[in-house]
């Protein structure tokens, strides 16, 4: 178990002076709590696997240090870091039985036979693999193989953190849920630090206490799923998380307030004032609001803006309506009971859910 810290950590796959080369991972400072469940979320190529491999020691970072419980492990090889890793594709030793697979890390560390047997059986029980212990591992299904990969990490009593690199990619959809629950359960039982890499937001949000969103090697936000949803720190986070993503409407600001395509938007006066200052300093201004928070009326009402509803998708327990506000497109996620039809309509943006972004970053 360990608290993991990154100090000025950065990685580049290219040689060159610090700061002057293309970074796979931009310089960052982070500290992750012992026993937390963290997810690294981002599109392909955002640097999340690079970061994972730096933690496990498969990659040596080109700048900065990695600390486990305050001890610098940057130069330690993988085998001495007490890290377990589960990969995208199940890695099992084909010629061994399930028992031997689970025992392999212990045998390599010369664990005594009775202790080894006890640990393997305990882990097999936890992962519901007890019945398969005598079977050859190569004959099992993909989800059982992934459990073996995980088990090889869990058998070691000294494991500080378990890293998951998109571990559910090859698992059947109906088994993903069970396996994910298993992971949560093990996390609660063992209180290990878990780090989970994925590009699937629903996996990240259901699995982790804390989600770190990465894009092009930059950490955009670290926060709980609720924080990411309610307070996206960056337009990318707003757009990437949520289905559909946050409405991002380019806007202007003048003496009378914020305007989207000529329509005045009501905001807290102090917030609008800060936006005005930011705008004066230069930078593109965008207004963001989640489709869940947009309010809709069929008929005119004070404080609502006239729009043209162009499409309504009924998805069973909710509806997604697309509306035009001048030249801008606004998506709304409405309850199944809301009556909504194509044609003229009215909507408002509640000020507590409306955020302004300057050059992508939220105006706090």
């Amino acid at each position, binding site marked *: 178990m360990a608290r993991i810290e990154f100090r000025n950590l950065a990685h580049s796959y290219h040689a060159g002076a610090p700061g002057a080369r293309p970074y796979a991972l931009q310089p960052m400072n982070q500290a992750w709590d012992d026993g937390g469940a963290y997810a690294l979320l981002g599109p392909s190529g955002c640097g999340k696997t690079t970061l994972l491999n730096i933690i*496990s020691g*498969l990659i040596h970072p080109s700048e900065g240090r990695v600390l486990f419980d305050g001890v610098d492990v940057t130069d330690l*090889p*993988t*085998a001495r870091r007490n*890290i*377990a*890793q589960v*990969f*995208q*594709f199940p*890695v099992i*030793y*084909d*010629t*061994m*039985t399930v028992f031997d697979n689970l025992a*392999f*890390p212990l045998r*390599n*560390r010369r664990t005594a036979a009775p202790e080894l047997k006890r640990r393997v059986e305990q882990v097999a029980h936890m992962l519901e693999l007890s019945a398969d212990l*005598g*079977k*050859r591992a*190569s*004959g099992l299904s993909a989800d059982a193989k992934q459990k073996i*990969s995980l088990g*090889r*990490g869990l058998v070691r009593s000294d494991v500080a953190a378990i890293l998951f690199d998109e571990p559910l990619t090859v698992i059947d959809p109906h088994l993903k849920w069970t396996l994910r629950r298993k992971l949560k359960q093990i996390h609660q039982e063992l209180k290990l630090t878990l780090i989970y890499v994925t590009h699937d937001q629903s996996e990240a949000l259901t699995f982790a206490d804390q989600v770190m969103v990465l894009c092009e090697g930059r950490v955009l936000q670290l926060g709980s799923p609720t924080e990411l949803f309610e307070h996206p720190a960056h337009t990318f986070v707003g757009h990437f998380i949520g289905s559909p993503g946050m409405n991002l409407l380019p806007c202007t600001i003048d003496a009378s307030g914020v305007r989207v395509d000529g329509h005045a938007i009501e905001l807290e006066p102090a917030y609008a004032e800060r936006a005005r200052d930011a705008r004066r300093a230069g930078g593109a201004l965008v207004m963001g609001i989640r489709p869940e928070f947009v309010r809709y009326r069929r008929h005119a009402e004070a404080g609502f803006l006239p729009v043209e509803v162009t499409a309504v998708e009924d998805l069973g327990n909710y509806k997604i309506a697309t509306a035009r506000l001048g030249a801008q497109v606004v998506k709304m996620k409405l309850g199944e009971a809301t009556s909504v039809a194509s044609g003229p309509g009215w909507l408002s943006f509640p000020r507590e859910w409306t955020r302004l972004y300057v050059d992508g970053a939220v105006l706090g």
Partner: protein
Amino acid sequence: MNKTHDNRAWLLVLPVVLLVAFNAVIPLMTVVNYSVQDVFDATHRTFVGADWYRDTLHNQRLHHALERQFVFSGLVLLIELPLGVAIALMMPKRGGWATSLTLVLIALPLLIPWNVIGTIWIVFLRPDIGLLGHFIDHTLGIHFDYPTVPIQAWVSVMLMEVWHWTSLVALLAYAGLRAIPDAYYQAAHIDGASPWAVFRYIQLPKMRGVLTIAILLRFMDSFLIYTEPFVLTGGGPGDSTTFLSIYLVKLAIGEFDVGRAGAFSIIYLLIVLAFSYVFYQVLQRVGTGEAK
């Protein structure tokens, strides 16, 4: 779905039928034809049934050639497989000019025709002007005269065979190694596996498929070896390097005993087929079979 019947479809199969006929069926049937008749000349022949087969099965010279053949093929596999795998393990892992250069260098012996290899080695082995022959004879002080010393002729043929074909095993093994995803090495690293454990539990099992192919190819090819002993000593000294195919050619062309040679050919073919089948079955089972 209704299937359309159109006999013109047979035309599509025709090229394959013709190819297989000229390539395999017709030559094989010619041999079968010889093996059941006593042929004097184009017009005089008598049907003898299984006589030639019975005769062949009791032929002492053939028995010796067969034993020699098994020892030879066995030794070839024992040397070439570990050597080829060892070479593959030492080859550069990532792409780049070093990998390309190594691959080309390793593949070179495979590009040389058999009889040229024989000629190269004859010169190489000559005690007076050959580099290796001279080295053994003068520098090491071992009397080297492969045309008259059976064991030396044997070792020479083995050397040629190993030099010529280890590359094939190495290339196959290299392909098998390169196909192992990095995650396996990373997982082994995390599990604290020793280099030997990585070889034993990851590399070797993952190379099973290509090594099966290597064993099959090398067994069959070495079982049919002809050119090397023919060029070197013509099967001598005495009968010491008279392997099956050398003996077969002596029978068929040297002694014009086409009946015996025909029966011998068929038995020879059956042996190769039987061994290939057994090898294949065994190796399939080794990997995928039941626990322990």
